[in-house]
């Protein structure tokens, strides 16, 4: 078991190193001068200030030192938790800005992923091998997974937010409120959270339902199902066994789909101007704030790696076979 976890940890560590290296390489090896293009968009009028900022950022990138030194000092900065200083919100450290946005993204992402996974699995398991249901749920599921996240978000914002006018369509909470621990503020938070959550939930739902449906059909063809059926076991029992077995690939699927759902969250946030990482990325792009952009990139990668690791551990806990195999292998 420890060998398995060790292997996984090694891959994640390697991924982290590669991500950091990409992050370090991009501004240095891409054509064009990053400092110049960043400052040209930051619209600094005063030439003297421009000169000083130019000097400062060349120093921050360490562009005047040899390459390997730049690389090492980049890592050193990372371990100090130093992701640089933002350009668009000038004196604020990038880390603070990102940490301010993270709770909003997590509040969207975690419930949307978990609920869509649970509900999608139920629907898929229910629909499998039932002709009429299968023929309706399958195309609907495929159409849902084919939808760009931002389009469904736009449709929901337009229909429920603008035309029906029942839910707010922008920002994380009502602009007339200040963040505080009161009913008014919390209810505003929830009503602003609902539409982005709903649109992510719906898009993600289709994929899980289809995956589960296919797995159930596969499991119902397995020998143990046929055997149970020959013994005259009730269909409900057979389906329950099939469902438990079909869960395992779906847990792995959760890890694989993480990146897609995450990008969906970023795009959905942009539609609703929800103050999470997606909106932050858009602002950073519009202001050419590469420090914020790269900090967010690293942050997202670390988050995805941690989530993957949690899923790995859950998988070991859920599947008794892997546990037995692993302890057997270690002994």
């Amino acid at each position: 078991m420890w060998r398995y976890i060790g292997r996984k940890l090694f891959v994640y560590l390697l991924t982290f190193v590669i991500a950091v290296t990409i992050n370090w390489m991009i501004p240095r090896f891409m054509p064009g001068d990053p400092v110049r293009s960043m400052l040209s968009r930051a619209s600094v009028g005063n030439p003297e200030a421009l000169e000083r900022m130019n000097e400062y950022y060349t120093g921050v990138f360490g562009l005047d030192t040899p390459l390997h030194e730049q690389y090492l000092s980049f890592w050193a900065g990372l371990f100090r938790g130093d992701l640089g200083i933002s350009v668009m919100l000038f004196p604020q450290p990038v880390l603070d800005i990102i940490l301010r946005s993270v709770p909003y993204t997590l509040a969207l992402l975690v419930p949307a992923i978990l609920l869509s996974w649970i509900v999608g699995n139920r629907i898929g398991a229910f629909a499998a091998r039932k002709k009429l249901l299968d023929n309706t749920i399958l195309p609907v599921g495929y159409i849902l997974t084919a939808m760009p996240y931002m389009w469904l978000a736009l449709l929901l914002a337009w229909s429920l937010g603008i035309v029906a006018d029942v839910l707010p369509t922008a920002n994380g909470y009502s602009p007339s409120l200040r963040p505080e621990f009161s009913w008014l503020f919390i209810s505003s938070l929830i009503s602003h959270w609902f539409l982005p959550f709903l649109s992510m939930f719906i898009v993600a739902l289709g994929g899980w339902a289809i995956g589960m449906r296919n797995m159930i059909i596969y499991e119902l063809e397995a020998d143990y199902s046929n055997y149970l059926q020959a013994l005259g076991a009730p269909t409900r029992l057979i389906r329950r066994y099939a469902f438990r077995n079909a869960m395992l690939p779906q847990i792995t699927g959760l890890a694989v789909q993480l990146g897609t759902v995450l990008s969906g969250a970023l795009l959905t946030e942009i539609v609703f101007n929800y103050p999470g990482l997606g909106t932050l990325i858009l602002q950073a792009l519009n202001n050419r704030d590469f420090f914020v952009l790269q900090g967010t990139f690293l942050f997202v990668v670390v988050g995805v790696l941690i989530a993957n690791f949690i899923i790995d551990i859950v998988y070991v806990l859920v599947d008794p076979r892997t546990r037995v195999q692993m302890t057997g292998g270690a002994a």
Partner: protein
Amino acid sequence: MSEIAGAPGAADPAGGPEPTTTERKTSEVLHFAVRNPKLLIGLGIVLSLLLLGIFGPFFIDQDPNEYVGPKSQPPNGEYWFGTTSFGQDVWAQFVYGLRSTFLIGAFGGGVAFVIGTTVGFVAGYKGGIVDEILNMLTNVVLVLPALVVLIVITAYLEVRGVFIQGVFIGLTSWPWAARAVRSQALSLATRDYVDLARLSGRRTWRIITTEIAPNMSSYLVMSFILLFGGSILIAAGLDFIGLGPSNGVSLGLMLESAMKWSSLYLGMWWWFIPPGLGITMIVGSLYILNVGLDEVFNPKLREL
């Protein structure tokens, strides 16, 4: 469906010794293909949108981004899909957008397909240390969230084109295809006829292309279709964030400008519904087409 159960080859999914001529096999696949509604509907929608994307722009005289008509018109006889708040023709943008959407799908999907299948075949066929290394590489790229990597990379590009976008999308979205191809190649690599080919001293590359790949051709086709659809969605996401091709037209860019110029609050639904609908229809019918193909190629699924 009694005549299907008795059809030659259908009852023998494991690829047994019974020789079926290629002619017979083709006609058998066709037999099931023309009777599969999923395949026909999916293919029909994709092909008609493709034709619209290829030939539609020839019937539009002006540049799609040109300000031609009155501003903010809802759909009418002259402007079928209405106009934007600058007076651009949404129909013209839509038709050109379809074209670039298919382009990016073919291009990004193609690059991803080439990388993914190459890595998968080599890893599955060679095994051992090569497999270990390639597998690790696949896992690393798999956990990196593609869109976020693409955002960081393309943000630094001064000028962006469809070509560059396709290459980068291909470079980040191949891993699952490599995994799928690898597991198939792994099981095929131990077959007798592959051993025979290896004994006869043929080059590795020849064995892969003539012995292994043809036996999983349907699988490869389906992987390509999924990669195609995936690249379209990723490209749409990039375009929406504002990292699309500079001065280009695409369905994702249409969504971006509709969002940026608050068509939502102006109630201009004709601006943001067509591009998203176009993407959904293309990708959705590709997926449904894929299910149909699966049922045609896989005898086990035919009974359904």
